[in-house]
């Protein structure tokens, strides 16, 4: 079958998080050198698209930016989002078979509430894309498979209560790596239990272990869920040369994973071995998407670390899977006086912003519902400035009771809180109440 592979290469050569920061101008420089020198852009099945700035409404539908989105420098992030959206649309419109958003900056650590940059991410490229595609094309079931070595806690946060988005993350165990989350017990909220799957691996797993996990766990789950589109958060820090993590995947391993997963769209996430890995991993992924032979992609450095494989890996992964399958939820029910009727499941967490070193506290309430994803209330506070921000989210395909509950909450809260987002995904609109004013999007 002849494929049509779209690519947006947006290396943001004039943007960095600091001169010696891993997320700096140089990051995709050698990838450019490699891919351009290899002439991959000349393949007849590859079509290069030009980047665009995303509409802020597309962002706010998915992420509430506090205290005011206009105070953040979002330019580079909006281009990364916009680029993902261009390819996503071209895929849905069948202009393309698949695509690769080879972009900076990354996004998967950025969650439903945003106070700044964390894990190098400010806007969540894949999440915004997914909700944009749902709003524009009415897609019902979507999946994200996150192959970055770090747990995509931001993406998980955004879709935790969404039964129609399957989020699978395979990563290095949170006990040994940022951001410290992504354990098997995290399986989704009360209306979306089982649509989050975390596969935390011990350090040292290589191609063999990854491929085994894909074939025996991830792919069957996808098969069962039957998503209309699969997005790959294609982080490249599982490579054996990565300076921040300790996995042992090779460039060809990434090619094989891509070939197995067959994502509709791969979006670059992390990966900071900018010389040893990125030129080769990016090339392998692109070739695999384009249906070309990637077996000639060989990084100059050779694997030196001990690899966790064979029997040791098999027994590890079987135990992990068993544990995952046996985890049972343990909901805490709680509500405030002003809450609309129903059972509300409560959860709280602190979110650490490593780029500027502060914390956010989040208290979330989800309306338990048998008919829809349930309205969500998120109370967020920046623990450095003590500013507060609220989000009320009415899900896609909300039932009438949940939608009404969302508006009732908004009415009850708008007199006492200064900064509230009402995200009505069902009707595709966002109301941002700031001070005594309201800004309407959509």
């Amino acid at each position, binding site marked *: 079958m002849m494929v049509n592979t779209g690519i*947006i*290469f*947006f*290396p*943001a*050569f*004039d*943007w960095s998080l600091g*001169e*010696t920061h891993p997320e*700096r*101008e*140089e990051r995709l*420089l*050698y990838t*450019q*050198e*490699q891919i*351009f*020198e*290899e*002439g*991959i852009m*000349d*393949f007849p099945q590859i079509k*290069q*698209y*030009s*980047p*665009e*700035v995303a509409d802020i409404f597309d962002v706010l539908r998915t992420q509430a930016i506090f205290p005011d989105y206009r105070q953040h420098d979002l*330019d*580079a992030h909006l*281009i990364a989002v916009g680029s993902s959206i261009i390819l996503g649309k071209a895929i849905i419109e069948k202009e393309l078979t698949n695509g690769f958003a080879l972009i900076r900056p990354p996004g998967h650590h950025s969650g439903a509430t945003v106070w700044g940059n964390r894990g190098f991410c400010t806007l969540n490229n894949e999440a915004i894309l997914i909700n944009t595609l749902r709003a524009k094309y009415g897609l019902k079931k979507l999946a994200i498979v996150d192959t970055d070595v770090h747990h995509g806690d931001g993406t998980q946060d955004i879709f935790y209560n969404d039964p129609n988005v399957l989020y699978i993350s395979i990563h290095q165990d949170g006990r040994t790596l940022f951001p410290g989350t992504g354990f098997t017990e995290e399986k989704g909220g009360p209306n979306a239990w089982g649509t989050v799957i975390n596969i935390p691996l011990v350090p040292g797993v290589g191609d063999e272990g990854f491929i085994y996990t894909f074939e025996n766990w991830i792919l069957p789950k996808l098969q069962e869920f039957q998503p209309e589109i699969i997005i790959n958060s294609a982080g490249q820090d599982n490579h054996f040369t990565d300076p921040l993590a300790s996995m042992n995947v090779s460039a060809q391993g990434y090619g094989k994973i891509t070939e197995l997963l067959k994502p509709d769209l791969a979006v670059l996430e992390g990966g900071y071995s900018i010389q040893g890995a990125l*030129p080769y991993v990016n*090339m392998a992924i692109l*070739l695999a998407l384009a249906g*070309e*032979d990637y*077996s*000639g*992609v*060989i990084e*100059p450095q050779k694997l030196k670390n001990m690899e966790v494989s064979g029997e040791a890996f098999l027994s590890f992964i079987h135990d992990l899977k068993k544990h995952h399958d046996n985890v049972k939820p343990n909901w805490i029910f709680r509500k405030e006086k002003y809450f609309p009727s129903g059972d509300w499941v409560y959860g709280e967490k602190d979110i650490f912003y490593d780029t500027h070193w502060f914390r956010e506290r989040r208290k979330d309430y989800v309306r338990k519902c048998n008919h829809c994803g349930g309205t969500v209330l998120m109370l967020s506070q920046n623990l450095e400035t003590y500013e507060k921000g609220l989000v009320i989210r009415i899900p896609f395909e909300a039932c009438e009771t949940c939608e009404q509950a969302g508006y009732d909450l908004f009415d009850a809260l708008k007199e006492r809180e200064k900064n509230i987002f009402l995200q009505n995904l069902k009707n595709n609109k966002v109301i941002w109440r700031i001070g005594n004013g309201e800004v309407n999007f959509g």
Partner: protein
Amino acid sequence: MGYKIGIDVGGTFTDTVLIQNNEVIKKGKVLTDPKNILNTVLEAFDFLEIPPSMPLDHITVSTTLVTNAILLNKLSKVNLILFPGSGVRLSSFNWPVKYSVLSGELDYRGREVLPPDKREWKELTQRLSSHSENPLVAIVSKFSHRNNIFETELKAYLENEIPNVHIALGSEWGKSNFYRRSLTTYLNLACTELFSNFRCNLKKAVISRGFNGPIRILKADGGVFPLERIRPVESIYSGPAASILGALAQSEPEESFIVVDIGGTTTDIGLVLGGSPLLSFKGAQIDNFLTHIRSLATRSITVGGDSTIINRNGEIIISNYRTGPAYCMGGNSPTPTDAMRYLNYIKIGSYQKAEEALAELLPENERQALTIRTLAESIIEQMVEKIILAIKQLLTEWKNEPAYKVWEVLHQNLDYKFNIYLSGGPAAGLAKTFENKMKTRAIISNWAPISNAVGAAMAKPTFSWTLNLDTSLAKYRIEETGEQGAWKGAKRPYREVEKFLVDISKEQALEMGIDFDSFKIEPFEYFPLVDNHRTIGQIVRGSVHLPPGVIGRIL
């Protein structure tokens, strides 16, 4: 100011023009003899009847010599030797020529990953010398634009072993893209002999006519280059470039417009943005060769004034071929020119013949004046719509140019108001239809029939010097000349790099014999190189251009 001559060799006719002080003094057309381009050029020159004493600034020739040789496969045989290293399989590409492969690998910064195997070189020598006394050899290594070491070493080796070998190196075409670099190096070497003969004979013939000044050749990028210095393959596709420059020479300085040059069988389309012709962001493709040859962004479609019109089961279609001149000019088949003649959009050719030609396309019982008129109009519409479709594709290509910096994305200027410049024989007959359909002004130049020759005569030289400096490896490279040298400056230089590049450019322009007055500097890119949280150097990229443009504007 002295006199300037422009000669544009076209498929059927060769246009020629003499210009002084931005005024056309004499112009004309001679028939092109595709088998003898040199003679055609000289005929065009002689047509102008220049007295030997006339002070000529320069002669500029836009020639199809190399284009034709490539398309007709009349090239010398070249041995293509590749050092592909690892990465994409060579078999993933479509290779229009044979190649052989040697081992040895460099990485993206030009660092050696695997040394070459000298035993292979010995075998290669035997193979090359067994076929020919004086073989042509193109050597290209992956990443040779970052480090030409394999290429230069093999060159030295072969020159030592085979005294009459003629070698070209990929690093002389120092842009990224191994595949294109290989094919470009191959093509240029393959047409060198052909072009050298043309060069010598043209020079001789012109001197024998009493003229000793510079002869310039028009390139695909809309610039000229001295006959002695041009790389032969850069002379391809100068025709479309000539028509864009021709329009430029007749436009207002900051004007934006779409150039539509309608010939007998093909129509060329180009774009000028605020007075600057748009360059294609990819190199030109000729036949099955993807190259690094810089060219103006153009679209060519096979429709023209002499395209044969056919009746396919009752449907009237403009075909993509020509059987001869228009029926009204004595040809055998109906053409758009006949439709234009019938509608009195043009005045040359026989009205009666035009009517006959159109009537032939209709069933016998429908050959009334009104139906013929409707048919003629629909033919013109069909032709213009085909051209407009191509214009739209070109505009899309321009809007979809990739951007790699935040600044570029935020400052994309797509807000131009375009006029249309029509040139070529049938231009006059189509202007109204264009205006109606595109809702913009269509301009037909006074010099429409010889616009290309005017463009050639008025073109400026073009060249670029693109720097890639790696201070950590202490090496710099200039892409367009293939120069690679040692960097002795700072590890983290700043503005002095710009001066470094401008100095190189200035010196080389002088040496190449081209003016270096209106150069442009692209914003330089600085990449701090970090190792272990410390900045250890910089990669700096930047370029100096002599962009395409015209010396003056024709009154």
